[in-house]
């Protein structure tokens, strides 16, 4: 029987559509910790014990070290300064990641002046456009086997790029299944100094555009209150190198006073880890080197045990 031209065209079109869908489906098998930044933070089971904060926490706190010392299963749900400053969007994402049944969890909430600040003038334009456009705001779920919405909203390339990246060697960032972000950088002192100088210059100019945010502060308080119902909250300010610490202290001179009054008000323990700032090495003065993440994590777990 002769197939009419119309049917033949429909079959060809169907073939193309199936080919596209099939290649996309195949690509999902090639997602690895190496090829999609932060993807592993947005999949997996709901969690009972979380590490919360920005890129400092994402890179510095290693769940597997905490797991050993505290006999719990931790998950690093910290992202970066662009995505996970305290606010409605991040708070809602945390609640979606959290196991609704969780009751005796441990929550390590890292704080620093950046995580409770906004660009000058931005706060009056609530809801913050920056937060609204953030992909955390576009995801309905942070659990499950795959997160298609994450790839759709956040992956810049065609999905077959996952296969390309899978076979291409030399990824410099690995988001582990427990959420810890391992950043691979040249550890030669000269390169560290170069990166530190660049980062410091960038931060020095950036900080002038930022101010303390009442909105982010009240969001942090709301988050602590919500998490307290699910377990115990520990506030931590992670170490950074002296120059960065001084820069933050000078610009956000009320931060320490505020955080101390918050710990009293909300009855949560707080540790400013500034005393360890010379004991660790950094990638750029601002983020702790991956080899020192276990060291920092061990200190945090020891501190929690002693509380």
């Amino acid at each position: 029987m002769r197939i009419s031209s119309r049917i033949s065209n429909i079959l060809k079109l169907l073939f193309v559509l199936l080919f596209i869908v099939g290649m996309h489906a195949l690509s999902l098998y090639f997602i690895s910790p190496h090829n999609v930044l932060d993807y592993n933070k947005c999949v997996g089971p709901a969690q009972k014990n979380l590490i919360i904060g920005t890129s400092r926490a994402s890179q510095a706190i290693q769940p597997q070290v905490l797991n050993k010392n505290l006999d719990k299963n931790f998950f690093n749900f910290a992202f970066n300064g662009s995505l996970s400053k305290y606010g409605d969007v991040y708070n809602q994402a945390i609640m979606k990641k959290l196991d609704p049944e969780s009751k005796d969890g441990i929550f390590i909430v890292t704080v620093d002046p950046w995580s409770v600040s906004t660009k000058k003038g931005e706060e009056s334009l609530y809801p913050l456009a920056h937060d609204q456009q953030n992909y955390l705001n576009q995801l309905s779920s942070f659990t499950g086997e795959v997160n298609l919405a994450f790839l759709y909203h956040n992956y810049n390339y065609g999905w077959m790029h996952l296969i390309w990246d899978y076979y291409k060697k030399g990824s410099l960032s690995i988001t582990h299944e427990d959420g810890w972000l391992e950043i691979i950088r040249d550890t030669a002192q000269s390169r560290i100094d170069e990166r530190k100088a660049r980062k410091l210059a960038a931060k020095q100019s950036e900080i002038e555009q930022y101010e303390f945010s009442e909105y982010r502060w009240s969001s942090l308080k709301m988050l602590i209150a919500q998490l307290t119902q699910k377990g115990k909250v520990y506030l931590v300010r992670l170490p950074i190198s002296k120059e960065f610490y001084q820069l933050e202290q000078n610009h956000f001179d009320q931060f320490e006073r505020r955080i101390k009054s918050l710990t009293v008000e909300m009855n949560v323990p707080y540790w400013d880890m500034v005393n360890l700032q010379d004991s660790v090495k950094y990638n750029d003065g601002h983020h702790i080197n991956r080899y020192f993440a276990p060291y920092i994590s061990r200190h945090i777990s020891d501190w929690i045990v002693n509380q």
Partner: protein
Amino acid sequence: MEYYSISFAGLLLISLICFWSLDGTYRKWRIWILLFSSFLFLWGNTTAMLFVSISGILNVTLLRWVLKEKSRERWAILGVVANALLLLLYKVGGASWSHWAGDWILPLGLSFYTFQHIASWVRVRQEDWEEIPGTLNYLVYTVYFPKMLSGPVEKWEGFDGQLRKVNELKFDDAKFIQGLRYILWGAFAKWTVAPLAHAFYLMLWTDNPTLSGILLGGVFNFIYIYADFSGYSNFVLGISWLFGIELIQNFKFPLFTNQVREFWQRWHISFTQWILDYLFTPLTFHLRSFGKKGIALAIVLSFLVVGLWHGLESNYIAFGLIQGLYFLPILLKWNWSERLAQAKKKSLALDRFMILPFFLLMSTTALIFSSASWNDFVLHVEHVQLSSFNVNGVFSGFSNLIFLCLIVGFLWIEWWNRNSLFGLDIAKRKFAVRWMLYIALLLALMTWGEFKNVGTLYAHF
């Protein structure tokens, strides 16, 4: 609404199903589907939707009223001035405007939208309207969603003629498939070739004040601009073909020309035609008494406006001015230009060879276009070490080699099909060739296509 989004795919699919499934007398609703889809395209951007509605209804109502009046000239001038003023305010207001209003205007290429209204009012003055435009058709003409973002700038007659026959349109497989070819080729150029070429340009031009920075950086920048805009144009042409409506072919292989007049006849054709009809021709009329010098002045002034259209920044002005000056040797028949033209006529090899130096000339000029300002360009060039040809290892490594192959492949296919409508106009090629290309392009698009954080360069203008 972004073209690369589920919402756009959904809108397109539903519009197409509704459009083609209407039968008999119900086909009269097709035009409403086009209008409704165009407004849905602006979904979530209330201000843009309001702006388009108010300005569209105001323009068509006044236009229809004025065309019934005897004394039209004053109204025509008012119409041109009012629309041009709006555009000028936006261009002058620039950043402060967008700070005040947010980025509401971004989904709408304001210039492209306004040019259509301005053309209508100029034609009132020229008494060029044969009949009063229908309100519905005129509204669809101005807001039709495939061309809303960055054109092409359609002419009323051609578009209205198609809208009038929209009820009679029958689904044509060949046309639909050609539309899909347009879409595939446009998508490949815009989302694969353009970002890759842009990356090479940045690596070669930024912080690399060497001869290679100017020559090769310029080449990749030129390819980037072309792939981005022609890709967009082909993509939206394809969308429109799916509805059976043909838009102006905006690019006809301009990279393979060897002289400036032909280049502008093939580059951004709808806009060049608009400038020719509504600026250059009236200017020539006024300056004709000065002979060739008058025409030369009209060309330079027209290109100055082309430059200004991109923005009021000095680099755009310089770009427009230089393009205008490139016409002088041909127009004023300078000796060397005449001799070269004769030689090219005699020798096909020379004609072909001259594409290369002309390409380099245009790509170097495009560097001015892409600089932040004229001063920025001059400052960069001042530091160039002409004796150095350092490519910073840009072309080493397996990945970069693949990327380079994709760009060269794109240019090669364009050259291969340079006598067709567009690069992938391959309906008459062998089945195996067609399908090999389709699959290769789809694979390249799905693997190296960059879809996020990639705006359309010309959407800013």
